[in-house]
């Protein structure tokens, strides 16, 4: 077993990628490791694949994956929009892994991201010693992706300052990155493209300029459509994470998972699953990703401090922490939910008590 905490997608699923590549007879766009059909199969999974089952990476509408793959095949950049926790980053990582075999060319957008992260920087020691030269240049991930014909990923595009965002415009429209200092330019090799993710819920972000926006095809990732789908996603990820973190084997408490998903969905939608009771929504997004992390930490608790079985008390603390982001208003929301909804449910007694204890 590897000692890496979280292997890259292309390493973790190397066997599946190899399997798909072997049987892939369809035409591949230049620079692609797999044909678009194989990429779609890789993402959506195929239990009946002739070489062996392919696990689904993205559980959700098929059309989303198809549009994403088709977009990248047209050399248009792809913008994945969605509230936090809708698997934007996850999807972009797997797309990059399947198409380029490399998901590491990543620019993380933050308020402090500088233009060097998108274009290039300088190795100042060499710059001083040798003067401007190609060797003194420190290429950004985007520049490397262009030169090698791979996919570059830009995370949280809207968190970057606007001027840094706009540095992408030339890259996306001209497919070239000029280096005026050397009177050179890097032209993108075939296969280069950009996948950006952005979260459309945060306030105080830097909206994309329409010039940049128009260079992206936009795909909005939805929250899981049904409770069953969400339970499926959560249980799948929880068991994967458990294995990766080498947590002691804990019986997969599907009931507990269902409960957490139910709580999250009800609070997110503002109405109980049976549609009868209105509840307030807290300020947090309560995404599927948060449900996964609540359960993973619950399993860790159960494994190390509990009796090895995931119980209500193991998830209670995590769930309270996830819901109550704003200590004042969210606490009211949570208490109300606890007293009006959770308490009424016969088979949720243990959970109710555990949540009361947890705060």
């Amino acid at each position, binding site marked *: 077993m590897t000692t890496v905490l979280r292997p890259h997608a292309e390493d973790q699923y190397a066997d599946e990628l190899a399997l798909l590549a072997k049987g892939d007879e369809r035409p591949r766009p230049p620079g692609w490791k797999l044909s*678009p059909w194989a990429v779609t199969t890789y993402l959506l999974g195929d239990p009946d694949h002739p070489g062996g089952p392919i696990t689904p990476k993205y559980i959700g509408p098929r*059309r989303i994956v*198809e549009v994403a793959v088709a977009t990248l095949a047209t050399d248009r950049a792809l913008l994945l929009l969605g509230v936090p926790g809708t698997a934007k980053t996850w999807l972009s990582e797997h797309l990059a892994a399947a198409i380029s075999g490399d998901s590491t060319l990543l620019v993380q957008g933050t308020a402090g991201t500088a233009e060097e992260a998108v274009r290039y920087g300088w190795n100042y020691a060499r710059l001083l010693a040798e003067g401007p030269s190609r060797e003194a240049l420190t290429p950004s991930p985007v520049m490397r992706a262009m030169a090698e014909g791979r996919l570059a990923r830009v995370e949280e595009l809207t968190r970057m300052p606007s001027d840094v965002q706009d540095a992408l415009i030339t890259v996306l429209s001209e497919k070239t990155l000029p280096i005026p200092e050397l009177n050179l330019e890097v032209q993108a090799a075939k296969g280069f493209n950009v996948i950006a993710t952005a979260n459309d819920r945060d306030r105080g972000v830097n909206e994309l300029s329409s010039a940049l926006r*128009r260079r992206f*095809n936009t795909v*909005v990732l939805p929250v899981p459509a049904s409770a069953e789908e969400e339970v499926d996603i959560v249980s799948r990820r929880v068991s994967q994470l458990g294995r990766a973190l080498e947590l002691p084997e804990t019986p997969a408490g599907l009931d507990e998972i269902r409960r957490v998903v139910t709580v999250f969905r009800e609070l997110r939608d503002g109405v109980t699953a049976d549609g009868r009771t209105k509840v307030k929504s807290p300020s947090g997004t309560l995404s599927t990703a948060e449900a996964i992390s609540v359960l993973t930490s619950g399993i860790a608790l159960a494994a190390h401090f509990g009796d090895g079985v995931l119980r209500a008390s193991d998830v209670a603390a995590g769930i309270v922490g996830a819901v109550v982001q704003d200590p004042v208003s969210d606490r009211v929301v949570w208490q109300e939910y606890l007293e009006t909804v959770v308490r009424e449910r016969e088979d949720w007694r243990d959970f109710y008590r555990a949540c009361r204890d947890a705060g």
Partner: protein
Amino acid sequence: MTSTAPAAMRAEPRRANALRVSAGGREAGLTVLGIRHHGPGSARAVRDELARLVPDLVLIEGPPEADALVPLAADPDMEPPVALLAHVPGDPSRAAFWPFAGFSPEWQALQYAARAGIPARFCDLPAAHSLAIRPDSAQHPDSAQHPDSAQHPDSAQHPDSAQHPDSAQHPDSAQHPDSAQHPDSAEQPEPAEAPESAEGSELPERPELSERPELSERPELAEEPDTRSGIRVDPIGALAEAAGYDDPERWWEDAVEHRGDTPFEVIAEAMAAVRDGHTPDLYESQREAYMRRTIRAAVKEGFTEIAVVCGAWHVPALTEPGTVVADTQLLKGLPKVKAELTWVPWTHGRLASWSGYGAGITSPGWYGHLFEHQDRPIERWLTRAAHTLREEGLPVSSAHVIEAVRLAHSLALLRGRPLAGLAEVTEAARAVLCEGDELPVELIQRRLVVGERLGQVPDSTPMVPLQRHLRDEQRRLRLKPEALARVHDLDLRKPLDLERSRLLHRLLVIGIPWGERRETSGKGTFKESWSLEWRPEFDVALIEAAAWGVTVPAAAVARIRERAEDPAGPALADLTGLLEQTLLADLADALPPLLRAIGDRAALDHDVRRLMAALPALVRAERYGDVRGTPAAGLRSIITSLLARSCAGLSPAVTGLDDDTAREMLVQIDAVTSAVALLGDPNEPGKPSDPGVSGEAVAPGEAGSGVSGEAVAPGEAGSGVSGEAVAPGEAGSGVPGEAVAPGEAGSGVSGEAVAPGEAGSGVPGEAVAPGEADEVVAPGEAGSGVSDGAVAPGEAGFGVSGEAVAPGKARSGGSGEAAAIPRDRWFAALRGVADRSDVPGLIEGRLVRILFDAEVIDDADARMSRALSLGHPPARVASWVEGFLSGGGLLLVHDARLLAMVDDWLTGLSPEAFVDVLPLLRRTFGAFAPPERRSIGNRIASGAPARTETTYDEGQAAGAVRTVLAILGRAR
């Protein structure tokens, strides 16, 4: 013919869909073109195939009674989508539609025949039978009771095709359409075994659907097919599954629609395989037998090359040699009704199941596009989408369109489809043109994919007179029926707009909600906002309404009369609502029976609350009638009578009420109070005050126009009143006044207020009945004589009534002249109630407040202190306070005396009593606006509220007052 024909139709197959048939000693070539209803691919194929075959007769699936209507299809004024409407005169519930869009194969066949100058005929079971067989469309898809038929005919051909194509193309279709489509399939009667027959099966089913859709009013019908679906298997689904498609619609699209040519022979073979082993149900057999019979008749007539356009499902049945005897047997003794057929305009929306029902076509706009533009359809489509978005001000550049086209193509490639379908272009539009935003996608759906379009039929189409009249009116008033809802703002001060408004109101009365009233911004009563959306079923409603009259107003009057005279008819409040509508629609002829009905109903109704509920609508009608110039003559007398009855009944009605009913009562009292305020403003001579009003009431008998003229011209009415001046107005006023008044006038207050009410009501009742006018007038004069004697001569009639009604005013003396009588009468009644001691606290408090606000009483503080005194249980006091303070706490802010009283009472409560009344107080004060609560709190906090009189410096205020008066139009 069958009897004379040889025993069998002999057929020698040439190809699966073409053969030679002989009948009656003649022989002809027969080609059966199996199509998908409303399939653009099929339509193109039919067009090309007909051009190749050069037939001398085209037979189309549809009711043969429509043969006479075929020439209209070639009329230049005919514009699809249109539908054949079959209906049974006198039984509007039995109707069926056969819709045709421009891209329907049947329509193309009709057009071909017209161009080529050859006859086209319909060959399905006559509507006379299909309407008779399936009276409920709901139940029988085929006969589609109506719809079916509509569809059947089609459906056989159309519906299926229609549905498929759509579905095929639209992923969406999957979302909505599917249902449409599936159900159909489901419906198909036994196709279960022959799933492939998809088309065939679809037909039957679809027809049902389509029928239902058409009968938009009965969606339930539409659903029926679904229930039946369980019986049958989806034939298209089987074919598609065999081809490896998970979505049957998409299969159809790929396999047939997008191939550019429809291999009719292949379809015929596939259908033969699908139908193998399928036993058609009786109705289906009858239809097919009739089609065969029509073919034989055509052969006998001497046609040599016959092309039949029908739903693919029927192809095997038409190419197999049936026997004349068997067919005759099947068609023997079919039930029959009298059916009439005509063309009616249809809409794309009705073809779509987008709105819930339709012919199962989810994307008529897209189909129409595919049919019209074979050249680069994707590019053209996305360009149109971009135009649509630009019209709404969304920035979409050509670069967007280019990228969207590329994405649509690569998506189609990725999905392994020969041509990008609706699913792909929609995805492309969403990701590129709309940048992931769902709202613009919806816009494209509505404007383009469904593509609202309303067909048009030529003037020479058979129509009922009512339809023709409405058509003329629409032209005259320049109101074009359109399928997409559109807002019209009418300014009733303009004659054209006024007429438009009347037309729309009249249609509403008939039951044709072409226009829907919208809230207008602004308060002017001269503005009306309508949202106009023409729906095809309105034509059915028009035909139904034709029994009531030949013009829109005549039908509307007859309709109102019918409702008003129905003894088991609507309740009083509904009648007054109807009256309001009648006035809006300017249907003066309907007024007398309606007013009589209201008068009768009011006289018999003992429940004063119902009377009170009816009053506000009447008052609005009366007032609004003025604005619109509607002669509201007669209305006043009813109002007067209703008010009088209400006044009379009020006192007993407020006795023994529990909390909840008291609260309801209060709402009605408030409503009447505000209605009464509309009735006349004493400060405004322009408004007919009571005398003028009663003048009107009297008038109708005498001369409608003359009277109302006076009433409207406020100056006269007013002056007449005060000055004793003119004749008729006063005489009139004298009448009700007398009846009500003199006896009670003296005694004044509440007790008598009741009595006059009754008297009053009797009189106007007469006044209403025009026949009695003479009598009414006469007593009026006599009355005025009396009153003269009784009262000061100068005040004449109105003086009398003034006294009788308004004791408050009478007391205050001379002010009586300007008093608005109904108002005073009402306040007198209220005061009578308020003076009683056994009224619920809530009501009493509220009444005191109303009277206080109206300055009818000036002893509010005394009454309050009485009500707050310790003699009353705290709960009653609290509800008194609630009633008194309801509607805002400003009073407490400004009237220090009252505040002090409330404060004293509150602080004087014992702790127990305080706890008891706390909820009530909370409710009262909780309703105040926060700033009011704050001000009250501040006042209390700033120390014991001083009982100071506020003094006004009139000189200082004069400027402001003048300005305000000028704004209000009352500058002196």
